[in-house]
C-alpha cells in the first residue's frame, strides 16, 4: 500500500460506486418493468372500454339504425385522425392535446375484418389480426405494442396499440429519473469521501512534513497538538526518541567541551610556566629545557585538539548549518595562525572574494581550513609561502590552500588521508591525524577534496595544493 489516502479513496469510492451502481441498475430495470406492466394494463383497459362502449351503443339502437351505423363505420366515416396541433417550443402539452396523442391508437373490426371505428396515427393503420391478447405489429417505421380483444356478443375485434419507441422513451425517462437521484447522490458521496479522507489525513501529512523539512541536527520535539489519536502514540514515541537523541548529543557536546577545557587549562598553565622559566633562566641549558617543554605542550595541544575534533565528528554532535561569513572566518584563521607563520618566517597570504557566504557548519569549516593551513605552515620550510584562496566559480565555492613545502608524491596522495599515517623521512612533528580529519570533515560538509600541484612550487620545493570544492 503506497498511500493510505489513495487506498481509502479508491476503496471507499469504488465500494460506493458498486453498491449504488447496482442499486441504480436494479431500480432502472425494475421501474421499466413496472411501467411496462402499467402500460400493458392500460392498453387492455382501453381495448375493453372501447369494445364495451361500442357494444352498449349498438345494443341500444334499433336494428335499422344499427345497420346504418355499421355502414357508416365501415365506410370509414368514424375513423378519427389526430388533429394537427402546434406546441410551443419545449412543451409537450397544449390545452388542445398532447404530442404523444398519435402514438396511442386503436382500431375495431367486425367479424369479417372490415375496419370499424378507429383512431390511427398519421402514418399507419393497424392490420387486422384476429388473435386475442398481447402482441406486436410493425409498420414501415415503428414497432407497436398491441392488445387485441374479441367481443363475441357483437362479433367485433378491438386492438389498442402503443408505439414502442414512445413507450420506451417514457419508461426510460421515468426509470432514469429514479436513477438520477442515485447518480447525483453517488457523485456527492464520492466528493464527500475525497474531502473527508484528505481532511482526515491533513494532520498526518503536516507531521510528516514537519519531519521531512527538518535539518539533520534539529532535534526539537514535533508539534503533537494537532496529531490525531491514531498517530499520537507514534508522535509521542518519536518525540521521546528525539529527546533521548538530543540528550545524548548534548552530553557528547558537553563532554568534548569539558574535555577541551579540562585539558587546555593545565596545558596553558604548563606552557606559561615553561615560557616564564625560559625568560627568567640565566643559563642556556635551562632555557633550552624550557623551550623543549613548550614544544611538548604544543604537540600535545595539537593532538588533544585533533582527537576532540574526531570524537565530535564521530558523535555527529555538530551545530546545525547556517550561513557562514567566509570573510569573518578567514579573519579568525589569519588571527589564529598568524603568530605561527611569523614565528616560522613564512608568508601567510589570504584572499577571500568579497561578500563570500556559504551555508555550512561553521565550526567544521573552520577546523577543516585551520587543519589545512596548520599543515601547510608546519611542512613549509622557513622563508616559504602559504596561500589561502577562497573564490566562487560556476560550480560553487572553491577553497585552496597552496604551499611551498616538500609536497606529497603522487603515489602517496591517497594514503595520507588515513589516520596516523606519516610519510617516511619527515622531520616535522605531527600526529598523522590532520588530513584524516580534513577528509572526514570534507565528507561531512559535502565538499570534494583534491590534492594537486601547487602553483607556487619550484623544482626544489614542489609544494602542495589542497582544493576543497563545495558544489552548489
Amino acid at each position, binding site marked *: 500500500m503506497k498511500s493510505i489516502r489513495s487506498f481509502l479513496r479508491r476503496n471507499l469510492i469504488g465500494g460506493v460506486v458498486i453498491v449504488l451502481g447496482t442499486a441504480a441498475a436494479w431500480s432502472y430495470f425494475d421501474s421499466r418493468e413496472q411501467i411496462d406492466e402499467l402500460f400493458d394494463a392500460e392498453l387492455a383497459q382501453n381495448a375493453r372500454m372501447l369494445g364495451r362502449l361500442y357494444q352498449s351503443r349498438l345494443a341500444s339502437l334499433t336494428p335499422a339504425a344499427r345497420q346504418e351505423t355499421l355502414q357508416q363505420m365501415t365506410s370509414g366515416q368514424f375513423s378519427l385522425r389526430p388533429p394537427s396541433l402546434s406546441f410551443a417550443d419545449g412543451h409537450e402539452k397544449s390545452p388542445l392535446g398532447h404530442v404523444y396523442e398519435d402514438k396511442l391508437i386503436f382500431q375495431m373490426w367486425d367479424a369479417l375484418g372490415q375496419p370499424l371505428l378507429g383512431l390511427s396515427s398519421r402514418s399507419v393503420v393497424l392490420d387486422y389480426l384476429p388473435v386475442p391478447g398481447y402482441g406486436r405489429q410493425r409498420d414501415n417505421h415503428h414497432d407497436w405494442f398491441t392488445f387485441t380483444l374479441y367481443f363475441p356478443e357483437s362479433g367485433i375485434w378491438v386492438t389498442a396499440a402503443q408505439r414502442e419507441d414512445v413507450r420506451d422513451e417514457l419508461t426510460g425517462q421515468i426509470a432514469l429519473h429514479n436513477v438520477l437521484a442515485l447518480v447525483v447522490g453517488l457523485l456527492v458521496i464520492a466528493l464527500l469521501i475525497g474531502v473527508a479522507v484528505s481532511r482526515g489525513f491533513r494532520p498526518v501529512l503536516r507531521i510528516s512534513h514537519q519531519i521531512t523539512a527538518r535539518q539533520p541536527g534539529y532535534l526539537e520535539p514535533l508539534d503533537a497538538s494537532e496529531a490525531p489519536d491514531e498517530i499520537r502514540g507514534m508522535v509521542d514515541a518519536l518525540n521521546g526518541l528525539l529527546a533521548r537523541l538530543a540528550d545524548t548529543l548534548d552530553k557528547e557536546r558537553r563532554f568534548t*567541551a569539558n574535555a577541551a*577545557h579540562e585539558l*587546555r*587549562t593545565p596545558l596553558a598553565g604548563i606552557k*606559561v610556566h615553561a615560557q*616564564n622559566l625560559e625568560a627568567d633562566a640565566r643559563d642556556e641549558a635551562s632555557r633550552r629545557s624550557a623551550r623543549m617543554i613548550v614544544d611538548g605542550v604544543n604537540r600535545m595541544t595539537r593532538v588533544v585538539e585533533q582527537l576532540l575534533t574526531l570524537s565530535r565528528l564521530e558523535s555527529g554532535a555538530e551545530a546545525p548549518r547556517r550561513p557562514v561569513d567566509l570573510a569573518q572566518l578567514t579573519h*579568525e584563521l589569519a588571527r589564529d595562525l598568524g603568530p605561527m607563520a611569523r614565528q616560522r618566517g613564512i608568508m601567510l597570504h589570504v584572499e577571500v572574494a568579497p561578500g563570500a557566504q556559504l551555508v555550512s557548519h561553521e565550526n567544521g569549516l573552520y577546523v577543516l581550513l585551520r587543519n589545512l593551513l596548520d599543515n601547510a605552515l608546519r611542512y613549509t620550510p622557513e622563508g616559504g609561502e602559504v596561500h589561502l584562496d577562497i573564490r566562487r566559480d560556476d560550480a560553487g565555492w572553491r577553497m585552496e590552500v597552496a604551499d611551498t613545502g616538500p609536497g606529497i608524491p603522487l603515489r602517496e596522495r591517497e594514503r595520507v588521508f588515513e589516520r596516523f599515517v606519516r610519510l617516511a623521512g619527515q622531520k616535522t612533528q605531527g600526529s598523522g591525524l590532520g588530513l584524516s580529519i580534513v577528509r572526514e570533515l570534507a565528507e561531512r560538509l559535502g565538499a570534494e577534496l583534491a590534492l594537486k600541484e601547487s602553483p607556487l612550487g619550484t623544482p626544489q620545493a614542489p609544494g602542495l595544493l589542497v582544493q576543497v570544492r563545495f558544489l552548489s
Partner: protein
Amino acid sequence: MRVLLVEDDPLLGEGVNHTLRREGMSTEWLKEGANVAATLKHSPFDVLVLDLGLPDLDGLQVLSHLRRQGQTLPVLILTARDDISDRVRGLDDGADDYLVKPFDIAELVARLRALVRRHAGQASGCLQLGPLRIDQAGRTVTLSGSEVALGRREFDLLEFLLLHPSRVFSRDQLVEQLYGWDGDVESNVIEVHVHHLRRKFGTGVVKTVRGVGYRLGELT
C-alpha cells in the same frame, strides 16, 4: 599599567601573574568572578584578563554584567572553548580581544599592551608625548630619538600617566598602581619618582595639582 587577572586555575593564574609582573605590569589576581565588579569599582585598572571557565560564574556573565554597569575598560578573555562561535560570542558580549588556551605569553603581553594603548587613544605601536616616546614592549624611553635610562618604577609611573593623559591621580592612587595594595613603601616614594622624571625630561612632564595630586603635563 595595571592589570586585573581573573583566573580560577592556580597553575595558570600564578604563571600569568608572574609573567605580567616580570613585564612591569602591576597585577591583582582574583580567583572568583563574583568580586570583579567590586574590585573594579574600588580602584582603577587599565585592562581586565578574564577566564571564561570560572567556578562560580560564567565569565561571559561577568563580562556582560560589567558592560551593563557601564564599565568601559578593555577586556581580554582567556577561553578553553575551541568552538569558533563561542569565541566570537565573547567579542559580541563586549570583550575586546581573546586568547585560546594554551597561548604564548609573548602574545598575551603584546595583546594587553595593544588593548591599553588603543583604549588610551594611541593607535601607533608606542606611547608618545611630544618628543618623548615609550616602547612598552622593550621598556625603553627615548627623548628626541636618544634613549633615556629609567628605573623600573619611573618607567611604570611615566607609562601610567601617558595612558591616562587627562586624569589627575592622588599620591595613594599612584602608589596602588605602582606597587599594588600590599605595597609597603616609603611615604614619599611618588615624590621621589616625580622628581627623577622632571630631572630627566624637564619640569613640565608631570604637573602638580595642588591639594589633589599629579597629572601628565606637556613637553616643549
